[in-house]
């Protein structure tokens, strides 16, 4: 289990990186944290001709509160986002989700933007981007484009980042006032990819009635699934809301598949259970 050979470049600036990517294009992989890429290389499931290592581009290592949300640079490690007090203040869902991402040692190195670009539908941060209605800023030598979450995840392990492009940051908008969030998942072992995971956001009005209940799902489809479940609980108080009904609504709108860890029916069952749990927990935080 050793990687195939590749040409290697470690640009020290974004411009330099874009120039290299423009040159090597589709034959290149970008190395940030590498926590998903390195196993793929070592198992020789991928053998890129060129590896562009962005770990020296310090200008991309930031976590900032801006534009009514949190902007995470391509070189910010999960741990940096998880521990950022400012980010937590404006968007607690980030930390709620990140604490479920693998183990701390992986989070020390893995990057949040990298995990989005990797587009694993089991990756917690994909659901967070979807639920927040966030976007990824993708740059190439010819320009910049902002790709909304709904258009960013194209399929399992396939994102909208094209050859020659670099995902330089992700923006996670904050939720409206009186919104609570939660991330709930069931994994085989602590730290494993979840068999089903739910990121939930519930918004209440000034009287404590639910005005919005939405959820993002991992591991139940080829890309993160975003559902608006408000119809099932609209107008109800936190204590009176029928969260299970919201779970059933979610079940009716997801088509999970089986794998070696879970049958499709079990996954669908988890969608219902975890939706109810996540919404209830989120609503409790909104109150």
């Amino acid at each position, binding site marked *: *289990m*050793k*990687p*195939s*050979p*590749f*040409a*290697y470049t*470690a640009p020290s600036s974004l411009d330099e990186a874009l120039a290299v990517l423009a040159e090597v294009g589709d034959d290149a992989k970008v*190395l940030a944290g*590498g*926590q998903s890429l*390195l*196993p793929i*290389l*070592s*198992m020789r499931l991928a053998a890129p*001709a060129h*590896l562009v*290592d962005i*770990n*020296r*581009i*310090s200008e991309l*290592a*930031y*976590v*900032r*509160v801006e534009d009514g949300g949190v902007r995470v*640079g391509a*070189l*910010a*490690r999960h*741990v*940096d986002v998880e*521990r*950022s*007090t*400012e980010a937590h203040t404006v968007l607690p869902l980030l930390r709620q989700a990140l604490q479920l991402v*693998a*183990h*701390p*040692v*992986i989070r*020390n*190195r893995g990057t949040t933007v990298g995990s989005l670009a990797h587009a694993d539908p089991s990756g917690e941060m994909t659901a967070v981007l979807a639920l927040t209605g966030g976007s990824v800023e993708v740059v190439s030598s010819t320009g910049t484009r902002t790709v909304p979450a709904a258009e960013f995840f194209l399929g399992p392990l396939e994102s909208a980042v094209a050859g020659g492009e670099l995902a330089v940051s992700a923006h996670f908008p904050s939720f409206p006032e009186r919104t609570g969030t939660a991330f709930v998942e069931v994994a085989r072992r*602590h*730290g494993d990819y979840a068999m089903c995971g739910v990121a939930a956001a519930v918004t209440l009005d000034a009287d404590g009635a639910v005005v919005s209940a939405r959820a993002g799902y991992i591991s139940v489809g080829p890309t993160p699934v975003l559902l608006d479940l408000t119809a099932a609980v609209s107008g109800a108080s936190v204590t009176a809301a029928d969260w299970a009904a919201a779970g059933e609504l979610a079940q009716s709108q997801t088509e999970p598949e089986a794998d070696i860890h879970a049958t499709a029916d079990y996954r669908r069952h988890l969608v219902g259970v975890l939706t109810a749990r996540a919404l209830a927990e989120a609503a409790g935080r909104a109150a």
Partner: protein
Amino acid sequence: MSTEARSTPGTADSDARHDVQLTVNGVPRGACVPARRLLSDFLRHDLRLTGTHVGCEHGVCGACTVLLDGAPVRSCLLLAVTVSGHEVTTVEGLGGPDDMHPVQQAFQECHGLQCGFCTPGFLTTAAAYLEENPDPTEDEAREAISGNLCRCTGYQNIVASVLRAAAITRDRQATFGHDTPGVSRPKVAGRPDEGGTTAGAGAGA
């Protein structure tokens, strides 16, 4: 069909060598290696620091965990060339037989190892954890080492070892009034913990 290799002069571009310079256990070390050389292999075979072990090479078992600028990382999930210029601490750098780090002493005292193969990864992980969390509960100690696989011990004595290491550290500090004497090891790098909006050294930029 016995086949001896044809000699092919020169090295393919794609496997060109790169000069990698690290500070390992406080000592500048370097070697010229292909870009694809994993940090685990670089430490073990190029620098011959074989205390770091390789159990899965896909980042799950944690046996290869080393401290990169003070923070635990999987050395099998890093290219050596990526971390050129940085500081790495391996199990050899925690302490030697005559100046064992509290976690090393504790693992012996609590029978926290059997075959010893996974142990270096537990030691580096626990050492970094205790730097930030000097007085963990049993549940926290268990959580702290729950990203590392051990097939021998059932973890019970490893959890006890982490708690014991915390106690040893406190005892040493009480006795000597400062950090562990005779043990030179880097601090865990500061994280942008308190409202920092820019990832600094901790981001390994």
